[in-house]
Structures are given as C-alpha cells and as structure tokens.
C-alpha cells in the first residue's frame, strides 16, 4: 500500500473515530472517583451486590491519592460533573462543605443508623453540624513494634509510652550489623507524608502551626524541640535515607524485619500482620502513639469518605450507593467472605462492640487511638484551626508541602534545623498574609 493510501485510510479512520468520540455519552450509571488502597479495591469487587439489589450500575475511576485530589478538586471547582461520588478525606470535607460544593447527607435512612458512626469521624466530616461525607474507613496512627526485639532489648512497651521511652527503645533495638533499625518514621516531603507525621508529633511537644491570630509558630522552642528530637533519634536509630521514606518505604522495611518500631497509620496493622506479605506477622505488638506528658499524643485522625458533589444529576442513586457502602451490612458482607481482619475499620462504633472484631489483635489499639484524637482540640495551646495533622484551611496543603520540603532537607543534612524552621516561619507567614488571614 502506498504512503498516500495509508495516510488517506488513517485519516478517514481518525475522522470516523473522532466523530464517534465527540458523541461519547455519559451512561445512566453512577461514576465514582476513588483511591487505590486495599479497602477501596475490595469494595469495587463487591459492587455487583449493590447493582443486583438496586439496578444501578457503577463505573469506577481509581487514581493515586494525589492525582485523585487534583482531579476531583478541578472537577468540583469547574462544576465538571464527571463524578457522582468522590472519595475525599477529612481535610477537604469541611472546606468543600462550607463552600456549598457537597450535598449534605442529612437525610440518610433510619436503617443506616447515622448515630453509629464514630463521633470523631462524623465530627471531622461535618461542617456546622451537617454531615457532608460518610466515612468508609477511618484511621489514626499508633506504634507497631517487634515484640521479640523489644524483649531481646530487655524492655517492655507500655500501652501509652512517652517519646523519651521510644528514644531509649529505638537505641536499644538498633542492630546495624543485622540491618535492624530501632525505629522507622516518615521523613518524605509532602503535607500528607512527612508533613502529616511531624505535625502530629509536634502536637505532643506542645507546638502548633498558628496562634489564635494566625501567626506562624515555627520560631517557638516547641517546634525546635520536636525537630531536634526527631532528627537525633532518626540519625541514631533510623534507616539510611529516612528523609525520603514515606508510608510505603517504611511498610516495606517493617515487613522485611528491618524496623524495631514504626509509628504510622493504623491501617498498616492489617498489612504487617498478614503472613502472606510480612515476614514478622506473628511478632508485632501495638501501642498508642507517644506523648511527652503535656496532655496531647502524637496520633492523627483521618478518614476516607464518600461525598456527593453538588452538581451531580444522580443524587438519589449516589446517596443509595453511599448508604450501601458505608453500612453495617457491607461490613458483615466483607467479614463473611474475607474475615473480620479485612473489614473497613474505624468508621462505626458497632464494629468495635462486635466480639468477632474484638478478637482481631489490633482492633482495640486502633479504637483507642481513634478515640484519643480530637481534631477540634489538637494542640496544647489554643489554636484557631480544626485538624490534627493538618489545619483545615484551603491554603494549608500548599504551605505544608513547602514547609515539609524544608524539614526533609534538614533531615538529609542539607541545612540545619534552625534554618529550616526560619524558612518555614517565613513561608507560612507570607502565604497567610497573601491569603488575608493576617
């Protein structure tokens, strides 16, 4: 075939497909944007049950967390209407709810039992007392530790340890010859990665992001103490290159038996105790995230929740799906098929009253961690914002990403802690001034 014929054929094909392409319609199904994690993927597998019961088909758009955040934010602010349900977190929900971008979930059926939602979760997903997203699963953070290494070090982990104890234990458990790091913590830049961890940790050291007049507080001793303690401990007992480690890197290290302790999301408990993936599945103990005796622990609170954007044409169907996916019946469905350890945790009180779930090794510590976190009162000194590992204002994600980059550079030894804090103070004050808070 000559080049000309090929080009003509290809052009014709292109125009035909383009004609069809412009005519792509939105089928009479609901489209859900969600993140790629174990619980969400499991839910996709059970969608047929929902379709059989209601006749409503479901299309899934699964994206990586940060891509999803950008995608749904663009969609909701441009009123794109590409999604009928969005998976969003505790950070976005109150902000978007206040802007009128979400449909209030204030008319859920009696069977749904909205009172059964854990108060901390329902509170974090509400604005002005109205629920704007239903929690699919919730998490806090806690200590996961190697009970065998702790015993070998001659120590016993308390249920509610202090940072001082954690520092001592990390040093005692470190065994460089055998590639065992006493402690693994997030150091990676990003507000949801290392930024979330250090913010939650700073709460226990008496630090806060802003005073009541929205002035940045990085020039305080509390922040200097937080970062100094973190860096000293990690330099002595953390893994090489910890400044670039996030959740996945630490999970990998822990599962391979290379961490004595790991403080991170409670959902990690099901990964590290799964014998198919973890080499230390039967040696893991759990404890509350540490404190310094100032009245606040260093655990956070987060929920992945399902919300309906205000522009959707299929509000009723979307609401039906949310009721199904976050119901007690869904939990029973998963438990019946995959066991109680695999049900979505952290959303409903009744789950933690269930004797079957109480038998799961990490259930109690997860609940205790969630209950000890209060987004409305997260700091020792009063602060003007809601949130534990974040401040629920639209500007926070951008500011915290920049600040966490400065912190990561300090962990990596590229600058001193004092310089990092100085820069953080300037970045934050400048951004808050530009946004009109100061």
């Amino acid at each position: 075939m000559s080049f000309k014929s090929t080009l003509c054929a290809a052009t014709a094909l292109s125009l035909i497909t383009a004609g069809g392409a412009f005519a792509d319609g939105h089928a009479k199904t609901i489209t859900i944007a969600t993140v790629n994690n174990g619980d969400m993927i499991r839910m996709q597998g059970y969608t047929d049950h929902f379709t059989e019961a209601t006749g409503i088909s479901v299309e899934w758009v699964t994206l990586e967390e940060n891509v999803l955040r950008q995608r749904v934010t663009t969609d909701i602010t441009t009123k794109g209407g590409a999604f009928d349900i969005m998976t969003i977190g505790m950070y976005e929900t109150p902000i978007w709810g206040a802007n009128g971008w979400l449909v209030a979930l204030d008319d859920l059926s009696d069977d749904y039992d909205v009172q059964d939602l854990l108060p901390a979760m329902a509170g974090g997903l509400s604005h002005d007392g109205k629920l704007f997203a239903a929690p699919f699963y919730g998490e806090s953070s806690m200590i996961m530790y190697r009970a065998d290494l702790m015993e070998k070090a001659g120590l016993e982990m308390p249920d509610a340890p202090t940072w001082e104890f954690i520092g001592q234990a990390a040093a005692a458990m470190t065994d460089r010859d055998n590639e065992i790091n006493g402690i693994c913590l997030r150091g990676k830049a990003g507000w949801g990665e290392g930024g979330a961890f250090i913010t939650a940790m700073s709460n226990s050291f008496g630090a806060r992001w802003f005073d009541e007049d929205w002035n940045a507080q990085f020039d305080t001793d509390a922040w200097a103490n937080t970062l100094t303690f973190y860096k000293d401990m990690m330099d002595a007992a953390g893994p090489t290159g910890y400044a670039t480690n996030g959740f996945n890197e630490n999970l990998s290290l822990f599962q391979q038996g290379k961490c004595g302790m790991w403080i991170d999301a409670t959902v990690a408990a099901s990964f590290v105790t799964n014998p198919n993936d973890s080499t230390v599945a039967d040696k893991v103990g759990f404890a509350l995230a540490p404190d310094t005796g100032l009245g606040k622990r260093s655990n956070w609170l987060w929920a992945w929740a399902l919300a309906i954007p205000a522009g959707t044409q299929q509000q009723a169907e979307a609401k039906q799906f949310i009721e199904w996916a976050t119901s007690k019946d869904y939990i029973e469905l998963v438990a019946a098929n995959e066991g109680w350890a695999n049900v979505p945790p952290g959303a409903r009180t009744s789950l933690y009253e269930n004797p079957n779930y109480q038998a799961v090794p990490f259930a109690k510590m997860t609940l205790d961690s969630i209950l000890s976190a209060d987004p409305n009162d997260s700091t020792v000194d009063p602060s003007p914002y809601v949130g534990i590992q974040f401040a629920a204002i639209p500007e926070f994600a951008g500011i915290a990403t920049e600040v966490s980059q400065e912190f990561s550079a300090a962990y990596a030894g590229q600058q001193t802690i004092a310089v990092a804090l100085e820069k953080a103070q300037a970045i934050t004050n400048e951004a808050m001034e530009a946004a009109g808070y100061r």
Partner: protein
Amino acid sequence: MARTVTTQRKILTTAAAWTICLIIFFPIYWTILTSFKTEAQAINDPPLFFAFDWTLENYAIVQERSDYMKFLRNSVIIAGGSTILGILIAIPAAWSMAFVPSRRTKDILLWMLSTKMLPAVGVLYPISLIFVRFDLLDTRGGLMVVIMLINLPIIVWMLYTYFKEIPGEILEASRMDGATLKEELLYVLTPMAIPGIASTLLLNFILAWNEAFWTLNLTAANAAPLTAFIASYSSPEGLFFAKLSAASTMAIAPILILGWFSQKQLVRGLTFGAVK
C-alpha cells in the same frame, strides 16, 4: 582523508553504546521482571533478579480488575487521532514556512515552540472550563484536539526541518509543469518527505500515547486511556508494586512493539538531513 578508526576505539565505542543502552533499558526490564513476582518478592532486599517463583498472578488480577481493552482502545484512538489531525494541519503550515517564508517566519516558529515552555498545569483551569462549557469532558474527541494542539509545535518544527532539506527548485519545476498547489503538496512534496513525515507520525504517536497530565485530568470512566489504567494501580498507602508493574508492562507493550518494528523508519527520519 578518511579518519582511521582503530579496533580499540571500536571496542570502546561499542562498549559505551551497550552500557548506555543497558542503563536506559534497565527500568523497563525491571518493571517487566517485577510484574512476574509476588508483592513480597517485589520488595525483597536484596532484589531478586531471576531466582524467584515466576507468577502470572498479577496479570490475572489486573485483567480481572480492569477492562484493559477499553483503555487500549481509547489510547489507540486518542493517540492516533491526535497525530493524524496534527499532521493534516502541520503539513501545509510547514510547507508555507519552508517554501514561502515571510519576515516573521522564524519568530512564529520560535513563538510556537515557546508555548511548550508553559507548564501544563498553568492552563488546567481554562482548558477544563472550555471542556465543561462545550461538554467535552471525558470524551476522546476533546482529548484528541487538546493533545494535537500540545504536540502541534513539535510536528510543525519537525516537518519544517525536513521540508527545508528538499530543494525548492523541484517544487518550482512542478509548478512550471502546471501542478496546482494541491498536486504539488500531494504528488511532489509528500512523497519526497515520506521518511520525515513517517518519523514525525511515529514520534508524535509515542508522545500522545504517553501523555499523562491531560488524559488524567480531562477523563473519567469513558475516555480514559492507558495512562489512567496505570495510575489506577499506583498507591502511596499499600505495596502494590508487582500489580503496578504488570499494569505498566501491559500499557507499554503495544508502543514497544510498534517502536521495535518501526525503528528503522524512525531512525532514518530522525537523522534525515543530518548529513549533507
């Protein structure tokens, strides 16, 4: 006088070429290898090169979870459509710039290229609003147009470079023989520029195939191509590297095969005009 190439120099050059090739190819090799491991093997330290139980489990899971053919179809249509649309617009544009240049031709070419320097996110909202206004969100046609526009400067530049190598006298001769503009473009210019057009087509098809920013931000369930397919297996909270590798291997396989079979044409086109 021809330069003498010693055996030692030949060996060194060959070794350097192989080393560079291996470095470039290693990430692809590792992705393919990881796709045949279990999730535990994928994160094993030290890394496992060959001594592991090979499994097709990840491919089975990916097939079960995602409609691969739908994503593939979208990729072929979007990449193919945008490339052909781009070529149709770029051939006349490059012809006029190469053979009927004005005082501003060079400025226009530079300005076209400068649009590539703007970060895509800078125009995310305007483009999104246009898509919403004209109901183009999550349509293959809308994406074809956007990707065509993004790659158009490169297509025009490449074709302009190739056309400049063609002696203008040949076109003049065809005009003297009575060829119309259409005939000049179709029967004289195009056949002579086939290697250049073919390599431009291939390169832009690859660029359009790999385009991730717009395909992720302007699609949902209907028009999502293979870039969205890969993105659905990426997760910051959970170790799914083996599945992600299987999805990546499935996404790059078609373009790798295309590149392999057309490498001669691609290299010939890219080096067209390099030696006078």
